[in-house]
């Protein structure tokens, strides 16, 4: 059984059809990347997989559970890091990790894992309102990964971060995948990041998947030296 199966996802906001029949499959322990220009439908797709939005047509199965019919079961199997996710300003990092562990019924060991993943040291005892953007992202990622979910959904995990924070986050994701064998779906505008993290990628534009494959396959197919060139050519085609 594949970890994620999206089948004909359609989503409309009023008259605006944002997704026009998205279908893809993600194998277990695979890192799957969604790339595409702004407004292509990446965040909407991830929000549907995270059960925040309901598709108008089509369905998606996460570990065999339908996002439409069994959202509660889906939530037990996933952890979602929204794009530009904020923090509870008055909670300390440590309190937040404990809150998340409690919400998922995890024990103290889980919080200790979170402390390690965040790597924020004494700052964990300070209110998160005082954190920089990079620190906020690290604590959020730690809170997600420490839960060891079967499927991790990451929406632009390093957007707007400086190099050091971005490198830390990429390393943690990669180490997490290696150690846990979890499935990861990640969206990003950073093609180097996508190439570094992903086993397979899909290119979305205008609410449709234009192409998908392994990074090397796509580079060969579009006779490009890197994924940025692939991206550029696909945008022109789309």
């Amino acid at each position, binding site marked *: 059984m594949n970890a994620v199966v999206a089948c004909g996802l359609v989503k409309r*906001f*009023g*008259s*605006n059809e*944002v*997704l026009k029949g998205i279908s893809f499959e993600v194998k277990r322990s695979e890192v799957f990347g969604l790339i595409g220009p*702004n*407004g*292509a*439908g*990446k*965040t*909407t797709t991830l*929000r549907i997989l*995270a*059960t*925040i*939005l*309901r598709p108008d047509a089509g369905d998606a199965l996460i570990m065999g559970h339908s996002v439409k019919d069994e959202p*509660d079961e889906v*939530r*037990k199997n*996933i*952890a*979602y*890091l*929204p794009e*530009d*996710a*904020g*923090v*509870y*300003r008055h909670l300390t990092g440590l309190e937040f990790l404990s809150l*998340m562990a409690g*919400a*998922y*019924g995890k024990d103290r060991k889980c919080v200790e894992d979170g402390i390690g993943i965040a790597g924020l040291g004494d700052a964990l005892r300070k209110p998160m309102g005082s954190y920089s953007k990079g620190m906020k992202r690290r604590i*959020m990622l730690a809170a997600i990964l420490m839960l060891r979910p079967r499927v991790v959904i990451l929406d632009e995990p390093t957007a707007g971060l400086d190099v050091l924070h971005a490198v830390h986050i990429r390393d943690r994701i990669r180490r997490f995948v290696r150690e846990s064998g979890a499935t990861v779906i990640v969206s990003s505008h950073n093609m180097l990041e996508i190439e570094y993290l992903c086993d397979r990628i899909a290119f979305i534009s205008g*609410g449709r998947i234009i192409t998908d494959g392994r990074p090397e396959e796509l580079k060969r197919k579009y006779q490009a030296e890197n994924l940025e060139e692939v991206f550029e050519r696909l945008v022109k085609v789309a």
Partner: protein
Amino acid sequence: MLRILLRKEVKELLMERSILIGAIIIPLIVFPLMGALTGLGMSAAMEKAEAGIIIGLADLDKTRLTTAELPGLLKERGIQLIKVECSAEEECIEAAARQAINIMIIPNGFTRNFTSGIQSKIITIYSIRSAAISEISMSQRFSEILLDSFKSLAERVHGSGIDPKFFEKPVLESPLVLYLGKMLRAPVTAIAATFLTTLFGLPLVAVMVASYASTVSATSIALEKESKTLELLLTIPARRIVILLSKLLGTFVMVLLSTISFLVGFGIYGLMIAGSMMARIPFEEVEIGPQVSLTFLDLWPSPAFLPILVSSIIIAMVMMTCIGLLVGVLGSDVRSAQQLVGAVTFPLLMPPFFILVFTPVQGLPMDVKIALLLDPFTHLFLAIHSGFAGDINSAIISIMVMLGFASVLLLLSSRLFMGERLITTKVTFGRKRALEA
């Protein structure tokens, strides 16, 4: 430069729809509406007061002065007298309670004193049934007319040779106020002052608590949206109803803390005002002494009032919390959510609050009455007023109606939390706004 920057500021602020609605459009609509509704309530109260007052007369003197001349003068001033058969004060009090009318007792020997230029005593029993200003003002008006009529009577009896001191105060009124089965030896003015601190104050507490509940819940949900923690919250493996309950209970805790603080502060204020200032009214015309001291404790109704008061305020909190959540999700940030929630709750709370202070709902024109009864918060004030007046059945009916409204609002809130509207809803003013995809 200032002109350029000012233009930018004004344009930016005016284009912010929450400011436009909350600060400019709503006051333009709400205040005239409130003025119209309150005016209607006041007019109804005044009309009722002026339409003719029926007073029971217990005439123990039975002379031509008391059976013909005084009734004639009172009739000219819009007071209709009906004969009440009672001889002792207690008997007359029972009659006033039974017939729910004000009674004036003219004691034996009144005419002899009056015609001799000696100040005479009369006893007045004011039977107050509701705490609305219309009824208080009617009783006050009766007291004024009575004094004026006796002055005219004195002028007629004594002619131009009247002793100015006697003319100034030909009778000494000994007022008794019958309220909630209690007999208070105090002028209506003193009762009115205490009523205002009690029956204006208690609904005011309810208004403050309810408003605060809506603001806290709207802020709570808007803060989640503004700080972008809502999506994370909605993906934790908890049922949405649990998330909703946590929001409701969190709001209750905050509002309860605020209510305790408010009640302590307001209680001290009320006691100070009622005990020291408003209820210590010099009232030289009455027999009972230069000053009357009443506090709201003297008027405190039956033990059932406290549970009625508490339960109606709690249900109002539930309703307002739900309204806060429902409105809060419309705002894109905390500021706009608070503006919107104020714009929605203000017209729901203020008109019934003000109107019902002036007149009981029964005294209102039918269309105003229907409009008010459709407002869930009218029933909050009705429950408090009825509970205070000892009409427990009416108070329970009002509470049941509030429970009905609260159930509907809870259902709407739970539906909001079940679906995706929590994330996707924004104020669009006719234009559908797509999410960033």
